[in-house]
């Protein structure tokens, strides 16, 4: 967790700088940072706010970027449903990409006893601090932090490492290649819908391979008949091996 935080921190810093440079006042930039708490959304809507785009367009963009969290929330259910509603809303609000990936690798099956929620809160707190502190620094020091160094790319590299750690066999690798190609091909879609297209494409390919139908078998043959395991489970085995 702490190692991934470095990338998150660099990303947060750059987002903080970007918000102020786009013309948001410092109080509003701080407000956005502490309430919205979604780096990819913030970076995507800042250029839209700069040109005073219609508010509904900005909100629609944010919903599309966050659609992946709707999918993630379905997977949080078995872990969190025994808690009261207010707590579930809090859990949902603080769960970012990082917390999701690290948690699901560590706890592929929901169980009652072994400190899952404690792990979740610890990871979320670390993630929150690693994002908020550098963002605030970026907002306050926007004029002195150089952006042409490409520090923001550290966030991309952190996500890249996370992506690689989810690859467990040739089926997941193929799904990732398809998702990447689909994202580039569909990039011109409005509201960053290319992310949704990529998810749909990868799920189709994954289901086709897992399903054992005719097309899936042919893909498997082409890939060399590697035995297929559930993606998250196998990644976990490898991490603990």
């Amino acid at each position: 967790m702490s190692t991934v935080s470095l990338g998150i921190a660099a990303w947060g810093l750059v987002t903080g700088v970007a918000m102020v440079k786009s013309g948001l006042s410092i109080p509003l930039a701080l407000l956005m940072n502490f309430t919205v708490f979604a780096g990819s959304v913030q970076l995507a809507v800042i250029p839209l706010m700069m040109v005073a785009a219609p508010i509904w367009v900005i909100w629609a963009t944010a919903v599309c970027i966050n659609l992946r969290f709707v999918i993630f929330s379905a997977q949080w259910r078995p872990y969190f449903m025994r808690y009261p509603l207010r707590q579930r809303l809090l859990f949902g609000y603080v769960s970012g990409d990082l917390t999701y990936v690290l948690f699901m690798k560590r706890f592929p099956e929901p169980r009652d006893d072994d400190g899952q929620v404690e792990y979740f809160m610890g990871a979320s707190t670390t993630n929150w601090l690693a994002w908020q502190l550098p963002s605030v620094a970026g907002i306050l020091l926007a004029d002195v932090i150089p952006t042409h160094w490409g520090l923001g790319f550290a966030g991309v590299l952190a996500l890249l490492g996370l992506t690689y750690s989810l690859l467990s066999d040739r089926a997941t690798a193929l799904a990732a290649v398809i998702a990447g190609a689909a994202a580039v091909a569909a990039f011109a879609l409005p509201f960053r819908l290319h992310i949704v297209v990529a998810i749909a494409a990868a799920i189709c390919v994954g289901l086709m391979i897992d399903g054992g139908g005719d097309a899936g078998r042919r893909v498997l043959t082409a890939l060399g008949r590697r035995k297929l395991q559930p993606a998250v489970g196998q990644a976990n085995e490898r991490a603990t091996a």
Partner: protein
Amino acid sequence: MSDSYAFITIVGLTVITVVTRAFFLVSEQEMVLPDWVKRGLRYAPLAALTAVVVPEVVMTQGQLISTWQDARLYAVAVSTAYFFWRGGILGTIVSGMVVLIPLKLVMGW
């Protein structure tokens, strides 16, 4: 942009963060997902991350880059090599940035 415009936008964005992240955590109703949906959803996080990362590496201003003189390509190549050689996120980030920053500052890529 006016402050009231920005304020309303930000409040709405906050609501969107909460609603999307807690979407399926709200209802108490038992939710039974068909088996194929569960299998399919396993690919969603990987696909979402890939869809965010790949355009950040190979696209500029919404266009596929057409030059090799782009620091990001070499940073990602080194990061990838590091990840599959040693593993670990920290080394993946650091090795990529060590390549990226000099290429950007010295070569202007």
